[in-house]
């Protein structure tokens, strides 16, 4: 949703639009740190993506096919459009890392290209597999690799960050869609099986 979405204008995948919001970000506190090479975010990013893939695809499976065109209000993404938006973003940003070939090309208007559940779940899965493979091919030092097509100070690590945070944001959105339609996320069902818990997402 947010900062990733402006590039998708060309594909008709318009989103929350936080490009303008970025401009208000405050400067980060200066930290003088002379420590040698540090935290490698790759393993945790990959683990996180694996978890996100499981959650997203199991949620997509749990939502009935006839709810895929539901949206909370006009001009807001439908269930199908969110799922394809995530798949498209995974594909676009993992492609930019240029480590492995993309599984398919993004057609114009991809977000609205289908409402067919099986097809959407399959493409979502492919997009996660691709993002995972693309990041897996990176060495720690690659995270610092400049990616000036995204801005003067942008680098590959920023793109990995964006893939992870963007997917989390839409997972939260998709969970809320599921809940209002009476669908309990499968992992919550599993967690609640032994005992009743407090309020969940």
């Amino acid at each position, binding site marked *: 949703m947010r900062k990733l979405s402006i590039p998708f204008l060309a594909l008709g995948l318009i989103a929350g639009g936080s490009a303008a919001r970025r401009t208000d970000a405050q400067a980060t506190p200066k930290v003088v740190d002379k420590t040698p090479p540090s935290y490698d975010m790759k393993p945790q990013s990959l683990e996180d993506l694996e978890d996100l893939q499981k959650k997203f695809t199991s949620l997509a499976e749990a939502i009935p096919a006839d709810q895929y065109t539901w949206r909370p209000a006009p001009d807001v993404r439908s269930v199908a459009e969110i799922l394809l938006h995530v798949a498209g973003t995974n594909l676009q940003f993992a492609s930019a890392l240029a480590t492995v070939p993309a599984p398919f090309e993004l057609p114009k208007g991809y977000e609205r290209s289908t409402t067919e559940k099986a097809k959407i779940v399959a493409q979502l899965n492919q997009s996660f597999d691709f993002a995972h493979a693309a990041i897996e091919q990176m060495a720690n030092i690659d995270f610092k690799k400049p990616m000036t097509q995204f801005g003067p100070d942008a680098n590959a690590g920023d793109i990995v960050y964006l893939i992870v945070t963007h997917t989390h944001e839409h997972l*939260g959105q998709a969970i809320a869609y599921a809940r209002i339609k009476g669908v309990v996320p499968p992992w919550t069902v599993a967690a609640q099986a032994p005992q009743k818990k407090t309020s969940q997402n």
Partner: protein
Amino acid sequence: MNRSLVSMCVLAMAWSVGAFAQAPPSADKTACYAFRQRAVVELKEVQQEIISLAEAMPAEKYTWRPAEGVRSVSEVYLHMAAANFGLTALAGAPPSPGFAFQGYEKSTTDKAQIIDRLTRSFEYAENGIGNLSDADLLKPLKFQQFTSVGDIVLHIVAHAHEHLGQSIAYARMNGVVPPWTAAQQQRRGQSSPAPRPPQN
């Protein structure tokens, strides 16, 4: 690269000059990636959006929830605040005075109080992460599936994003357009009457 992707990249560049120009360069030129700095930038963005969204939600909607057994609007906001306070302390920041995780999510439904706590929690997380050193990120730690302070920092950012997405959906279900989307739509409406694809 096909025409669509070319167009996309051009737009990506136009968009992102503002986005990444603000990521401060790492003070440590030997570090592989300015991980902490990026985390702080991400948190500041989420803070700006969630606070404006919390302001836009009518006070009487703070107890709304999409279904029984699911967090209400206020519970989601306080859950975010609790995670910011709790996880940042776990990462090594001095604990926030007066914060107690137990029962925090249901401790109030008062809009002004919740916005204040949410704001303070983001400031606390941003300062806490900003004050860590690169070496701190490598410190081992065992919490759920996470094994280092760096893992927790990434989780703090990811967690905030996830509940921002949830909150946006809650707002939309209650007829509230996120303020940044409303502003964007107003700008577009002034410049072009063309129909727009759906938003979040």
